[in-house]
């Protein structure tokens, strides 16, 4: 029973990771940009949620669409204003740019919210759902389920809508997509906005589970980056699988050897990369035709 309990925990958390990392991997797939600022986007959304909740006492889950839309807009601005201009200089420089964005945002958040833990505690914060012997705390349960819903929505959006097909086309071959009328700038803006949107939604989900302060962005970005490397850069299914691996291995580590949980995940990544440098579902591309 204990195992089932731990598994359930791991899967719920894995769902949240999957939502967050799919945003990072989508941006990478379409733009070749590693958004190392996703952690600070996340913390930004979480702290803003806290602020609104603190002032109004509103049910935080109602803020999911608001924060999603807000962060999508924020991501769009960051792309149009900064990223677009640096993309031609190659992935090394865009990483440094996003690193700068992350650091600057942390500085601003520190000044605005103070360097203290903040948490949102709605009434169900301490309650749990009991199914037989299985105990699922509501914050984890709600977050996991909401993340899954948004992720499934995102998946169908990418699969079925014209914009989604355009994004996937652009991710595979920018020039080819441009030839059939898909503006790579528009596709990139959309990808960046969706990526930031996942951070917006994720921020709300996180702050009902964990206390957050600006420097926690490092913990989150480290996990998210680990996930997308493990899953294979640019692969959303890969990110989902890797998220589950992280969620479950963390849950087990938490239960038995709590202080080593982060180390175990990174250890797994290094071992996998030793055998599959391209990640679990990453693809080796045909270099000769893409250059």
């Amino acid at each position, binding site marked *: 029973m204990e195992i089932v309990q731990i598994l359930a925990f791991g899967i719920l958390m894995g769902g949240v990771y999957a939502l967050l990392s799919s945003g990072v991997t989508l941006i*990478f797939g379409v733009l*070749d940009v*590693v958004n*190392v600022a996703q952690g600070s986007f996340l913390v930004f959304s979480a702290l803003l949620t806290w602020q609104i909740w603190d002032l109004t006492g509103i049910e935080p889950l109602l803020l999911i669409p608001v924060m999603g839309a807000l962060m999508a807009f924020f991501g769009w601005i960051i792309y149009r204003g*900064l990223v677009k*201009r*640096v993309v031609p*200089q190659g*992935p*090394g*420089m865009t*990483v*440094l*740019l996003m*690193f*700068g*964005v*992350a*650091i*600057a*945002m*942390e*500085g*601003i958040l*520190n*000044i605005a919210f103070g*360097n203290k833990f903040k948490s949102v505690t709605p009434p169900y914060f301490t309650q749990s759902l009991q199914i037989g012997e299985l105990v699922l705390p509501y914050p984890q349960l709600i977050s996991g389920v909401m993340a899954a819903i948004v992720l499934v929505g995102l998946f169908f959006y990418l699969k079925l809508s014209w914009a989604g097909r355009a994004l996937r086309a652009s991710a595979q071959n920018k020039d080819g997509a441009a030839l059939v009328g898909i503006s790579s700038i528009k596709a990139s803006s959309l990808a960046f906005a969706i990526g930031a949107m996942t951070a917006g939604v994720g921020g709300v989900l996180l702050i009902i589970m964990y206390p957050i302060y600006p*420097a926690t962005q*490092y913990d989150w*970005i*480290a996990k998210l*980056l*680990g996930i*997308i*490397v493990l899953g294979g*850069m640019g692969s959303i299914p890969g990110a989902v699988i890797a998220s589950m691996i992280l969620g479950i291995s963390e849950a087990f580590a938490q239960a038995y050897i709590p*202080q*080593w949980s*982060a*180390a175990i995940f*990174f*250890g797994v*990544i*290094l071992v996998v*990369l*030793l055998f599959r*440098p*391209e*990640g679990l579902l990453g693809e080796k591309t*045909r*270099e*000769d*035709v893409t*250059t």
Partner: protein
Amino acid sequence: MSALKRPANVVGAVLILLLFLYPLVGSDTRYFESVLIVCMLYAIMASGWNIISGLAGYVSLGHSVYLYIGMYTGAILGKMWGVPPMYLMVLGGVVAAAIAVVVGFITLRTRSHSFVIITIAVLLLFMTVAQNWKSLTGGTDGFIVKQPEWNKDNPTTPYYYTFLGLMVLTVALVAFIMRSRLGAGLVAIRNDEGKAASIGVNTTLYKVTAYALSAVPFGFAGAVYAQYLGFVTPTTALAILMSVFLVLAALVGGRGTLWGPVIGGFLVWGANEASTVLAGEFSARLLIMGVILILTVMFMPAGLLPTISRFVHRRKSQGSAVAFIDQASIAQTSDVAIDSIVARTGQSTDPAVPELEVKGIVKRFGGVTAVDGVSMTVERGSITGLIGPNGSGKTTLFNCMTGTFQPDEGAVILNGEDITRQKVWTRAHEGLGRTFQITRLFKSMTVLDNLVAPLEKTSVRELVAGRYSGEEVDRAREVLDFMGLAQFEGQEAAALSFGQQKLVELAQVLMLRPSIILLDEPASGINPTLIEKLASVIRRLNDAGTTVLIVEHNIPLVLSLCDRVHVLAEGQVLISGTPDEIRNDPQVIEAYLGPDHMLEVNDV
């Protein structure tokens, strides 16, 4: 060229001299010494980072981990042995390099994006270990390090000079690497990694070596820094911030340059110190540094030194337009002794063994079988053609031969030896040279640099040898002369026309004295004069004993040059034969034009 002729070297030398004199002539130097110590620390770290991220182009965001490794090595061993950590700085360097080799071997096989990420992960992983392995590291509290007798009054000057010494050594190390063939190879990797492998650069070895070397100055400095601070604690946020600072320092100064990271270290830490005085608080400094990083990336991506030198150059070169040489003049081949160009020693020349043979090659991409069981031979001393319609699998087969792809089934045999599992660069050393359909020269390097970048073999002696050690340069000039390209020696490769680039690429391949050259559509996209020129070069190389395999759509060229032609269609060999046989074969016409055209062709 004298080292002092370059202005940046003069600036660097003056900086070091001033730093050396400051404690001797200044009064009440304690505060500024302590600021300058950190400046020098950042100069050391930024220079070390420059080896892997500036020269080889693999950006590391977690490099401060090696400073912490140096700090912990010094502090832990110092505690165990009762020695001040500073005396153990060599060990700090050794341990940092050893860990970097392991990390590098795992991470550098991934492509550049993953590498960036893994470097952050390694930093966080190390910090987690340091925070939790309490018996060894003292956990999150860290521990106080052993201090020597002379440290009682907390002097700064001994540390000041130690860091100055380390900084000079680091600059010397970077200068040495930049002048060595290792450095040339790293720049080649930054320009085009796949191409570098194809001309014999063992890219994995190069990258891991560069990564390990880049960790060494961190390890040294770490042991000294631990003692200077008096304690070690694993504070993740500080370690990350340190990585930001050192990356920023290298970027601001100019990554890939010798002195840029040093100057950058002083500028960035100086700015940080100033903003501490002005803005005070930690958060404000974060914000300021973040904004500086964003601005640098957006408006001065090359860094300060390159930006200044470009500005100076532009002013100097006004009026002296680059001389463009007309195509006709390269069309003449000089009469350099061809034998010295192609001579290859230590290889069997048994005519019964084919130069290159493939057996039953199958290569699938997802559901598409691009090459479906191809067997063919390239006879020694022949010019063999490989033709076929688009999508018939020519380039894929080519890539299986050169090692860019591993075939799913089948074997590639070079000169009687199975090379199916060999790396691209090993094949290059074994005598298999290739050119690319779309040229892949190292665009930012000169023509001469492009030619000396290939390595005949991989050995320590070869790696540390000077980039322009006499023999290579002589040979490069000889090859350029042979190709009629001598006048382009000092030009940047990007300045040449596409056709000229194709000739340079062929010259580059000749540097390795290949026994067989694989030419991927040599005639596509170049003008008829150059095609003539190319054909004559190919014939001369072949007369001197070099085997040639050509993939080409220019059928007249192939039929006029080749002794034997293989025709591929839909991933299989359709027919092999002499040019005459191929010309008149109805199957070939059908393969190219489709069955519907058969009637028309026959009608004519």
